[in-house]
């Protein structure tokens, strides 16, 4: 049997996933990281994006996180997400809407909107959509 690592994904509202996995991929601030069992201890911030939990060669789970923290101990990975949603549950319409809204805000140069807020919102919406697309490609 392949080596496994215990994975806990919790968001501020609930426990999202807890169980064993072969590998975990997460969107760290300096680029995506892949955590295999016996990884060196690590703490990093997360960007909005997809956390993938590879259960075995065939199965893997995908979650969308809007940012948070990742802690790695040799045998435990903990993802503290600000919000985490099962990727399947992302409401595509809501994501598209948010994206449109953010783009509109960015194009509006009248200075009514906070540029940084709009950019963060856009990044989040785009990441949600990308997670969905990737999931769909894998499914078909």
């Amino acid at each position: 049997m392949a080596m496994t690592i215990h994975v806990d994904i919790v968001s501020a509202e609930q426990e999202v996933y807890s169980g064993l996995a072969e590998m975990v991929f997460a969107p760290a601030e300096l680029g995506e990281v892949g955590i295999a069992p016996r990884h060196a201890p690590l703490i990093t911030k997360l960007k909005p994006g997809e956390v993938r939990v590879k259960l075995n060669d065939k199965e893997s789970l995908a979650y969308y996180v809007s940012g948070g923290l990742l802690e790695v101990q040799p045998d435990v990975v903990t993802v503290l997400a600000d919000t985490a949603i099962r990727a399947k549950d992302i409401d595509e319409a809501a994501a598209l809407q948010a994206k449109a809204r953010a783009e509109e805000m960015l194009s509006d140069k009248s200075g009514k909107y906070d540029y940084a807020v709009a950019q963060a919102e856009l990044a989040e919406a785009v990441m949600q959509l990308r997670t969905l697309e990737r999931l769909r490609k894998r499914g078909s």
Partner: protein
Amino acid sequence: MAVGKEIRGKIASIKNTQKITRAMEMVAASKMRKTKDRMQATRPYSKKISQIINHLAYANPEYKHPFMIKREVKRVGLIVISSDRGLCGGLNANLFRKVLNEMQEWKSKDIEVDICTVGGKAANFFSIINAKVIGQVSKLGDIPHQNDIIGVIKIMLDAYASGEIDELFVVSNEFVNTMTQRPVIEKLLPVVADKDDDSLRGTWDYLYEPGAKEVLDHLLTRYVESMVYQGLVENNACEQAARMVAMKSASDNAGNIIKELQLVYNKARQAAITQEISEIVAGAAAV
């Protein structure tokens, strides 16, 4: 019949009171279910983050964050979480008594206390006893948001960072079960391992991305926020449970009083009837 008019009035007024307490009991029961769910939903997060903090305390970090260094204690910060409303038994009173005891102890050691209050009852209480309140937030409602308490937490964290306070505690009620709530004082800062023993300390350190300071700043702030928030939602559940129990015993008491008064009233009425009959009989006999 004019017998026992006052008693009847009293019974009616107690019945009204009982209606109110019974309604409050039922409202509190349904609210308790919701607040309890909310408390349980946020528990995993605060549990995990305190686990990570504990790991961190046992690590041997190259960069020592100010929040992790023990200092000589001259002044402590307290975040006291209470309910906004009363009528919930001894919930708040017990909490404040615990705080007062601690404060006395600190005072005997010449340690001063700064207080931030969450909830209306704490704000009232600590302004009455002239404690030094440096931050205050209340009227958070049944669904508190994390944003609501960021203000008081920032005050405390800034005070800690600038060296004004040397320890930070959070005080709130712990939800044991529906019948029991326990006031607890928990130390948040500085973060030190449970057993402060260097031999237990690992020789390893985390990798920090992007930088140790940035990550630890974020992590420790999140830690304090989530612990205070957890205290708040837990205190909310306690408040509803305590109110439910208090209102239940109030309704029961009202029921007992009504029963007793009814008995007195019936006796008086019976006595009046008996007297009337014996008067009539005596009158008839005299004729």
